[in-house]
């Protein structure tokens, strides 16, 4: 992060993008979309990885980082797979 203002710009533009991306969604897809977006929110894995790296051998921090990574990955992997399971059932006949 080079500066706070840059980070705030990123936050603003990311929020606006999110508002635009999900304008019209058929109700059919609300559950899969929620589940998919939920999996994406597990992107906290990046923070967990950074934390583990920043631990520099501090055991307590390593454990917290690994725990956090586990929770985040549970969200990511479980989320994407479950979404895929749901969407696999929407194939047209």
């Amino acid at each position, binding site marked *: 992060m080079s500066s706070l203002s840059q980070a705030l710009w*990123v936050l603003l533009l990311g929020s606006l993008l*999110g508002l635009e991306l999900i304008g019209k969604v058929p109700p059919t897809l609300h559950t899969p979309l*929620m589940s998919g977006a939920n999996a994406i929110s*597990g992107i906290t894995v990046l923070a967990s990885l950074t934390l583990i790296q920043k631990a520099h051998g501090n055991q307590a921090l390593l454990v917290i980082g690994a725990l956090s990574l586990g*929770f985040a990955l549970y969200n990511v992997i479980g989320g994407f797979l479950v979404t895929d399971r749901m969407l696999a059932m929407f194939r047209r006949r």
Partner: protein
Amino acid sequence: MTHPFALSLPQALLRGDGLSQLIDLVAVLLLALGIKGLSKVRSARAANGLAALAMGLAVVGLLLQIRPDPQAWLWIAIGTALGGLAGLVTAQRVPMTAMPETVALFNGCGGMASLLVAIGVALFDGQASDTVALVSIAISVFVGAITFTGSIVAMAKLQGWLDTPGWTQSQVRHVVNIALAITCLVGSVLLLADPSGLPLWLLVVSASLLGVGVTLPIGGADMPVVISLLNSYSGVAAAAAGFVVGSQLLIVAGAMVGAAGLILTQVMCTAMNRSLVSVLFGGALGATGGGGESAGGAADYSRITSCSPEECAMALEGAERVVFVPGYGLAVAQAQHALRELAKLLEAHGVEVTYAIHPVAGRMPGHMNVLLAEADVPYEQLVEMEAINPEFPRTDVVIVLGANDVVNPQAKTDPTSPLYGMPVLEVDQARQVFVVKRSLGAGYAGIANALFELPQTAMVFGDAKAVLNGLLSELREMGVGKAAPAKGGAAPRQPVAA
């Protein structure tokens, strides 16, 4: 973060590790395309894969950038093995009917991850952090803890492990929650001065309790809104964690999910004609809500007609157009396969079968679509509310399966009803309505349903699966669905126009 001047984007790209910056950009692009693609039926599955790919790319990009030492790799492997394996198992084992709970559980874990990162940084790097980082830590702890406990409470309520306690419906809860919110604020302010001490734990505990305090009073039909909102929170928590560790990618992705979750929440509120404020602070509709049909207070009915599956089967046998209205009761009874079988039998008999899908039927928008898709119901037969409402007057038989509030005609006619103004399926327009229900207990919103007392309505009491199987055997006994004409020269019905 204290850099006084913002770098321009090209400068930011050139400094540091160019390759991982580029990977981050590609990942953001793919994530955006993924979310967009998820909003169309045709592209949804590929889009989900795209988003997963983007996530993988982002992780690879970060690993390239931070180059973990061997010890870090070890702990990364441990965390990956635990979370990855658990995620794999959960995703494969969980039944389709438990989707809302599962999303809530995953969501809570995402919040927990952000919470842990913020706690870790506060405890061991807090003294070195500037004000911006400390504010980010406070926000991350606050939102992460609320997301975690709120999601777990939502999951427990959907699983039926938790009821809505009576005291949470009184005004006392507002006092408790406001007190907790003030404690959070105090903890956050104190945390700025002392990041690794008591204020951190004060904030963790009070925010966790606040998550319970705001979710526990919410009942029934409002649950989908809460899950969607919590999903939005987990995005905010991820973005806050992005500020804590200084990751732009995390901020973008978190912000996108946060904003998208808010939109989805708003869409759901609109579908139920509820404002977000009334969902969050109004408590459960009715006094007892939250316990499902059986636990809802028995409403007063005076003109109820009940009938046996046999009578219902006879009506189906003579119908040309049948509409099924699935609700949460269908999911609870796991009756989707029995329903599909009944529909197939009727179709073979020449009956036109469709399914009316209310946007908030079940416990999550799209819940019914997922459920019926699991039973191989053709996607084309699922008709949304706006499209099917004009069709009800020319429908012979409507079968309501474990749905209640979404078919209550009082939402249109009775301004004093709490449901007034909510768009409903106008099944009362059909010639004949059968309501399959376990008991006369009130629906999730805890209010009586005028539909049940209409002259054209008959109640078929029982578990949805048992009733559907009963209908199947009755129809088969009548000879419905057999190739040869049944009896007395009654030729198999042709699907000619009425």
